[in-house]
């Protein structure tokens, strides 16, 4: 079936355009309908779905089994595994000006974050720079 084109004047921008995407959609949907209504294609499609489904179920079971085994192992070896969620909230701590417990107290360590408190990639910080050479420079170019 030949695709029909439509002309559309979109407002406020002077767009005398053929809505090509409509042709695409029509073409795509025609093919999809043909595939679904063709008995042979439909049979193959069903078989493929069954195969994918079986693999997915098998993989899921395997993963679940592995995870359960790992959890059991951890429980036996450490006793308390904890939740492991950390503080990955994407927000910086309240105070980066040095002096609080997270940022250290000595002059050498002032403002140095405690990496153990990162809790994932969500920990992001900014604080007074220390000595030594700078690694980068932020400026207008």
């Amino acid at each position, binding site marked *: 079936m030949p695709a029909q084109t439509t002309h559309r004047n979109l407002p406020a921008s002077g767009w005398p355009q053929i809505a*090509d995407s409509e042709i695409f959609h029509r073409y795509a949907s025609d093919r999809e309908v043909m595939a679904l209504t063709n008995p042979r294609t439909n049979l193959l499609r069903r078989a493929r779905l069954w195969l994918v489904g079986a693999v997915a179920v098998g993989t899921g079971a395997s993963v679940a089994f592995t995870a359960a085994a790992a959890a059991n192992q951890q429980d036996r070896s450490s006793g308390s595994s904890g939740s492991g969620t950390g503080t990955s909230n994407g927000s910086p701590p309240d105070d980066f000006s040095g002096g609080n417990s997270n940022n250290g107290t000595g002059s050498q360590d002032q403002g140095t974050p405690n*990496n153990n408190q990162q809790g994932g990639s969500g920990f*992001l910080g900014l604080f*007074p720079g220390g000595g030594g050479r700078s690694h980068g420079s932020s*400026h*207008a*170019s």
Partner: protein
Amino acid sequence: MTAALTTSTPSTLTWTDWSCTVSVATPDRRDAAVARAIVRSLMGQVDRAVSRFRDDSDLSRVNAAAGQYTFVSPLTLRLVDVALRTAADTAGAVDPSLGADLAALGYDNDIDVVRARRNGSAPTPRRRPWSWRDIKIDHKLRRVGVPEGMRLDLGATAKAWTVDEAAQRFRSYGVRSALVSIGGDLAVAGVPPRDGAWQIDVAEFEGAAGVRVGMSGGAVATSSTMGRRWHRADGVAVHHLVDPRTGLSARGRWRTASVWAPTCLEANVASTWLLVDPDAASAHVAAKAHAARLVAHDGSIEIIGCWPASPPEVSS
């Protein structure tokens, strides 16, 4: 664009591209070359996609075919998407449709060329019957179109996106820890260096005195009316940060904004927005828990959020 390469320290590589200084820093010197290759490759791809100054870029083809759709690369589509999302998030303050305004101000070539000549005319009444909302994007057929008279410019978002993308790619290429900076827009990836933090000098423009901050993650970007400046044909100094409401160089109450945010794109969008629409952008920065250091026209400093109150100063 030409790229001149120098090695300043064992773990920092610096070169010039896009008319600005590009650098990568890594605690492990073996990672530096990999990081540099990633950044140079990515910058080349972005340049071919959305450079305003090369005729064969997708962006130039879109601008040249204004009024019609143009087929573009997936990268271009993605960058236009980012620009449109940014415009929506900033209520149009960071606008990708200002290419014609920039050209009218004289910024129609590489900034070094623009600075070397007096160019651009005095402002005339602006006819702008469209806005960024009229930029058309067709994801299915991978096409972009702009109305006649509009010219795209993705300068406010493409560079920062490139920084973020490079930082993401470091991990997938096995670079454990790195800082990447393109023209002063920078991001860090991976664990900080051995001494616990990346040391960043923040200044209004390259070579100026500034302050030093440390960061364990995220990104910092600086926008300034002091950086990309040039003189119009009539001798008036203008800069590249255009106010979409007027089409002229922005004249907000701050001349420089440095912003820390989780990503360089967020940081750069906020720093640009702060210079164009200070009130709305200030509220945004505070609400997002970003941090900002602002320099007023008289040189006074204002702070938003958790920017360090008195970081050590560094000379130029």
